[in-house]
């Protein structure tokens, strides 16, 4: 029984191989001559480069202390040496006028608002960051300087771009 079953299986295999040979007489020869060409990319070095890039970008992002985002419509003045900006109250010159921390502010209210903000942050040093277009005249900037003088603010930080990083 077992012998006959094995014989039958052998016959089937012989038939399969003969069919294969009829269908493609060159196939057997081709299989024998085929060389294994390797097209493997050296991925390890690529992964290394990517990892270094990712680490650099991550380190750059996390050590970045800037709190002020440059307004797209404002061309900041260019200076040769600028210190980094820390946290503070931002006063921006917009097309409509001046804005204190993003909210439009009237000139007659400015002194009171600055005084209030200064009182709120009594424990810490009050930083007033002025962000204005480089083409405005001093006449337009003057109300801010006067108002801050009246509010008792002793220094300002004028936002600027360091030379070489022109916007």
């Amino acid at each position, binding site marked *: 029984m077992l012998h006959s079953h094995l014989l039958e299986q052998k016959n089937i295999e012989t038939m399969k191989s003969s069919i294969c040979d009829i269908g493609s007489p060159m196939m057997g020869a081709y299989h024998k001559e085929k060389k294994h060409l390797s097209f493997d990319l050296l991925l390890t070095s690529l992964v290394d480069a*990517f990892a270094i*890039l990712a680490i650099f970008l991550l380190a750059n992002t996390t050590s970045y202390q800037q709190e002020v985002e440059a307004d797209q419509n404002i061309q900041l003045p260019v200076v040769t040496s600028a210190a980094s900006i820390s946290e503070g109250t931002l006063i921006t010159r917009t097309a409509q006028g001046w804005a204190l921390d993003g909210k439009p502010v009237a000139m007659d209210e400015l002194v009171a608002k600055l005084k209030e903000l200064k009182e709120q942050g009594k424990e810490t040093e009050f930083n007033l960051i002025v962000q204005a277009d480089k083409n*405005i005249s*001093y006449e337009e900037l003057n109300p801010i300087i006067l108002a801050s003088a009246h509010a008792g603010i002793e220094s*300002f930080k004028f936002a*600027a771009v360091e030379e070489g990083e022109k916007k």
Partner: protein
Amino acid sequence: MKKKKEISFDLNLIPFIDMLSVCIFFLMLTAVWIQVGSLEIKQGLGGQTEDNKPTPTILTYINSQSDIELSLKDADAPHKATIKAHNGKPNLKNLKLSVTQLVSKTQNLKTALVMPDQKTSYQDMMSVMDVLRKSQISVGIVPL
């Protein structure tokens, strides 16, 4: 007899590369390439100390033609100089030279007051203040 199966220990790096490239794209898109810096300027009005002897101060007046007039206040030797504008802009090179000379000649010269004209552009004012600050001078601004 069954053949022993071959076990591949190769790491599949493709998903790893995918993940890293997505990470890099995200970081590059979110990175801020223009760093905003600042110039710290003192208020020119008030805040004077009650010292017995006033310290020398450079008075820097920028006129409407962008000429810079320099004078010394509270100094032993008086000084006055005008730095003519160059192509309608303040001549920063000459200003730097004059300030360096003044600093070397005058003792305790550590402050400067900038008085721009009402028509002076913000950029010109900042450039002048930048030159003064680079000469280790504390700068104050005077309102109109």
